[in-house]
């Protein structure tokens, strides 16, 4: 990615450099050639519509190339490959808390292997921060109340700066760290070193501890939708909208269950806002995402009408 950005940057620099040089040279040459001593009488020229059109249209098309190339790169930057390794990031004043799906936790450091696509799923506990790795030419603001994502693939082992790029208070400039890129072998070793309860495992425990499993059942259709195979599918909602079940959807459904009711279900789920922390939320999301219909013959959530449970909703 860095290479592509640099290539575009060099192209832009060239165009800008040539334009600047042209303007500077033209101004200087004209200013010298037509200085008053040599050219005491100005010739009045009204203007030229053709010239105006030329120097409006040509820059426009040049800019169009900027736009298209830039948009293509941006599209790639915002589209993580499907098989990326996921890492959860929670930002707070003034530190980065990193959770690997394998259960490893780090603060202000992120260890990643070379050659692997890494997708960061980020949220903030307080104000807006921004995850910025200049060496990878990537940056994404980290917002409270929702996930933003970012992905990259490191190619060369080493330590790279991690900065917070969105002003976040007193120690904004201290909210940095390192991205430690390692050979896959070293990385595996490092990963083996720490305590290892995979994130989805933590999520699984939470899932039963919080009683989610009473309604979201995997064998039969419960009061809540079956979550197996839910992730990354399109969900038809009660109000007729179709939404993608991405991380933000799962997150919102936990914190604010009534916002998007799946078709055929009742708005009976209580909110877990204030009950689960951002880290626990990440674990739950990771768990829901891990539910794939491999073992069981469970299909995706059918929009079939569930047994109606009209009166018991306040019990929860």
């Amino acid at each position, binding site marked *: 990615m860095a290479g592509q950005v640099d290539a575009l*940057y060099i192209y*832009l620099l060239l165009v*800008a450099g040539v*334009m*600047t040089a042209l*303007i*500077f040279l*033209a*101004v200087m040459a*004209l*200013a010298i050639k*037509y*200085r*008053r001593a040599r*050219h005491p009488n*100005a*010739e*009045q*020229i*009204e*203007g*030229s519509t053709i*010239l*105006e059109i030329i*120097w*409006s249209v040509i*820059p*426009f098309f040049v*800019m*169009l190339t*900027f736009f298209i*190339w*830039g*948009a293509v790169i*941006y599209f790639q*930057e915002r589209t993580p490959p499907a098989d990326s390794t996921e890492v959860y990031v929670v930002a707070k004043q003034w530190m980065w808390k990193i959770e690997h799906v394998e259960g490893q936790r780090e603060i202000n450091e992120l260890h990643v292997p070379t050659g692997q696509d890494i997708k960061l799923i980020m949220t903030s506990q*307080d104000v*807006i921060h*921004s995850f*910025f790795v*200049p060496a990878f*030419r990537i*940056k*994404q*603001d980290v*917002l*409270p*109340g929702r996930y933003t994502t970012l992905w990259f693939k490191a190619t060369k082992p080493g330590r790279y*700066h991690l900065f*917070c*790029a*969105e*002003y*976040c*208070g*007193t120690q*904004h*400039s*201290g909210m940095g760290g390192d991205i430690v890129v390692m050979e896959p072998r070293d990385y595996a070793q490092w990963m083996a070193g720490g305590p290892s309860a995979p994130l989805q495992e933590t999520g699984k425990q939470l899932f039963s501890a919080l009683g989610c499993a009473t309604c979201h059942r995997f064998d039969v259709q419960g009061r809540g939708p079956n979550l197996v195979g839910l992730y990354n599918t399109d969900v038809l909602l009660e109000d007729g909208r179709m939404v993608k079940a991405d991380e933000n959807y799962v997150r919102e459904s936990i914190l*604010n269950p009534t916002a998007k009711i799946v078709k055929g279900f009742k708005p009976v789920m209580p909110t877990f806002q204030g009950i689960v922390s951002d880290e626990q939320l990440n674990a739950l999301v990771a768990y829901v995402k891990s539910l794939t219909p491999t073992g069981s013959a469970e299909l995706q959530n059918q929009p079939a009408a569930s047994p109606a449970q009209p009166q018991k909703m306040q019990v929860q």
Partner: protein
Amino acid sequence: MASTVIPANRAPAPTPKLNYLNNGHTLKSWLLTTDHKRIAILYLISVTVFFFLGGFFAMLIRLELLTPQGDLMQADTYNKVFTMHGMIMVFFFLIPVVPAVLGNFLVPIMIGAKDLAFPRINLLSWYLYIIGGILISHVMLTGGVDTGWTFYTPFSTEYTNTKIVEAGLAVFIAGFSSIFTGLNFIVTIHRMRAPGLTWDRLPLFIWSNYATSLVMVLGTPVVAITIVLVAVERLFHLGIFDPRLGGDPLLFQHLFWFYSHPAVYIMILPSMGVVSELIACFARKRVFGYKFVALSSVAIAVFGFLVWAHHMFVAGISLYAAMIFSFLSFSVGVPSAVKVFNWTATLYKGSISYATPMLYAFGFIGLFTMGGLTGLMLATIGIDVHVTDTYFVVAHFHYVMVGGVLMGYLGGLHFWWPKMTGRMYPEAWAKLSALLVFVGFNLTFFPQFILGYVGMPRRYWQYPPEFQALNVLSTAGASILAAGYLLPMIYFVWSLRYGKIADANPWAAAGLEWKTTSPPPTFNFDETPVVTWEAYNYDEIPAWERRAPVAR
């Protein structure tokens, strides 16, 4: 007409001609004046005070950044310093500077009117500006603000305990000052033009002030209400941008940038108008493609409203919105490019002299070209993701704001100084300062482009040591720049007493403002002029070296 001009500060002279400066000497005659020219002078003084205040903070920033460690001041102090620098420079200097000083002085004269349409509202604008200024100074002296001039939520609403409400109120009040100025200009330009002065005969400075006024009137209210919402969120816990209530912090950014991006055009457009005047005068030519230059001002003002979210490409807006805004952002590039090309083309077959104002105009073209082209890079999303919120952006907007606006302002101030005061500035010193400003400016801000691309984020109090060399260069440039700005201040004051006395039209320039005396009488013209000529009729005016000597 022999212009026997006696400057105000000269000891009693025989039969002084009454002009706006000597028409009343009491403090009251200044503070309660409704004369647009006196109000312009009031603005000139107050804006200059705020410029040096903002500049002082800039120097503190540059000194702190000399070393990678935060050793000059605490992190909190640094955050307050750059916030003050931003707020003062944006709201109390750049936005009012050209419209409220040069525009206030020149708009009525250039269109042959006796005053602005609403002289009392004009005075009210100044008082609002001063009240806002006093408030922001109060904030500064009693603890400051640490949000940056952008007030981003939820930091500003919930996580900082500095004086957001007071600072917001200051910006709100200053905003209304600028709304009233804009409103006054639009009405004046529509209603008060001299007979015969049709729209296609207007000086380009008027066109650009008109466009600026549109932005002031249409954009400022949105930022005003946004700041009110931030204030009530802090005061009364209404939670409109509160993520815990399902509010979206990005909505604040949308509303904020809806004004604050077009605000950039409030700043730059009047300076573009100044440059058009300067180039025409010192090339002795009508501006090439007058119509296109005039309309490009309006086009910039209108397109300026379509591009705000290019400040938010990495903020979490949707992919598609980012692409739309990126595309639209390039649309502003076209009219800006048209202006630069037309100025350059105006030089062709002109008769060019290198008076100080022209040097500033050249400087403007150069720096604005660089600022504009780096702006295109920032509009290119793939690049923006990497360089936004870094020193690249800082360098870019200083090239446009300081390189552009200030070059235009200083050029205009030198150009119209004889008209405003009746005195010439010292040419040699002025040329030196123009040179200092240009060199100092590039030395200060060019390294910041590189700093940004190698990854130094903005608003950093301390930074990794590898960025130090470029930061030292930048600080060195800043000291040259400071000298370049102090110099005019000194010789302008000096010239009030010792400068050569200027006649009505020292540059042999076209335009109504040169057809009245220097300084002009209180009502600008003894008789309402009737305009029968096109703008920039330099073919009818001989250059000043070859004019018949004027009685002095």
